[in-house]
């Protein structure tokens, strides 16, 4: 007997501009995340800063993920399975605040984003559902 559920997991893909961090995305980002978590030690941050490419080559990440790290393309990294809680370790290694890291994925400049937050944040009206356009 199939169980009745309140909604299908496919509905998680119905939120505009949002990549819900599912088990599959978690697997896709696993080696990228291994790299990010390695930056929780100062000696590893130093080694990464000294030669980014050589350091990245120690991890089983895809070439695309490595290039996106080198480019600091956080939007791309999220497309490639990344989750902000891991990526923020990369941002911190660069001395970048969490707000700047988040704003870098939003399509807005850091200043525009900071201003929006001071004015009460982004209103959810119209961006709850792709299907329902509300």
């Amino acid at each position, binding site marked *: 007997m199939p169980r009745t559920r309140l909604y299908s997991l496919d509905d998680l893909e119905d939120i505009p501009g949002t990549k819900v961090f599912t088990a599959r995305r978690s697997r896709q980002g696993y080696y990228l995340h291994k790299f990010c*978590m390695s930056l929780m030690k100062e000696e590893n941050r130093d080694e990464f800063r000294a030669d980014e490419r050589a350091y990245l080559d120690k991890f089983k990440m895809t070439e695309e993920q490595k290039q996106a790290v080198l480019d600091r393309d956080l939007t791309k990294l999220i497309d490639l399975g990344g989750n902000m*809680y*891991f990526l923020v370790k990369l*941002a911190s290694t660069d001395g970048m605040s969490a707000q700047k890291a988040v704003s870098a994925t939003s399509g807005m400049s850091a200043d525009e984003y900071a201003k929006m937050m*001071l004015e*009460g944040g*982004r209103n959810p009206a119209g961006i709850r559902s792709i299907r329902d356009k509300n």
Partner: protein
Amino acid sequence: MARITAGIATSHVPAIGAAIDLNKTKELYWAPVFQGYEFVKEWIKKNTPDVIVLVYNDHASALMMDIIPTFAIGFADEFESADEGWGRRPVPVVKNHIDLAAHIAEQLVIDEFDITLINEMDVDHGLTVPLSLVFGQVEEWPCKVIPVVVNVSQFPTPSGERCWKLGEAIRNAIKTFPEDLDVQVWGTGGMSHQLHGSRAGLINEEFDRKFIDLLAHEPEELKYITRLEYLREAGTEGIELIMWLIMRAALGYGVEEKKRFYRVPASNTAVGHVVYEAKS
């Protein structure tokens, strides 16, 4: 017997921890946030518990990568502050109450919560920022802390309803512990926020305020908010609010609300905070 005396909920934004550590709490941006915690800092002086059961989520500091438990309990003697990429927060080591932690772990499994025990982990801002907000900058935390870690990041997370039941089970466990202890249960995280993509910076003040309105006296209504609804209404990280439900359920039927506070923004997030004294 052990008693549940009070509950606290608060957001655990990392930038709040940084503002405390770098002495920025009086700055124009931060002062209104910290003002909201003046009450609890005074209140806790007369209401310091023996033990806090502190419900939080790990932010890819100890978990989320190799092992992803839905519910876990910290079972080490001590927990150090994690290095989240900018060095460890300069806060005291967190000391566990092993006997109560063991009792809770056993009772939860008997009550069909198959909780994971963690014998070694560092604790990140999710746990240390609430302690700093309430106790300030201290040499030692004035009580023991039992970390309860909830997966709210990798989907599917537990449902709000499941979290409510966990809170009830934690309540039953604490109340059957034979030692004479005052115990508080804290729920952390939230309120609305989303940390990536074109919806980044989402704040839903109406949703947040309604959540705080109902939490004290009509929390049953909040139990049935679905995961999908949290995501749509409160953002991908706003679902951390399910951890407030664990705290609320642990307090039992009646509470007296001593404080409520809401403020936008702290970094990317809406800050919410409540203090409840338990009546039963």
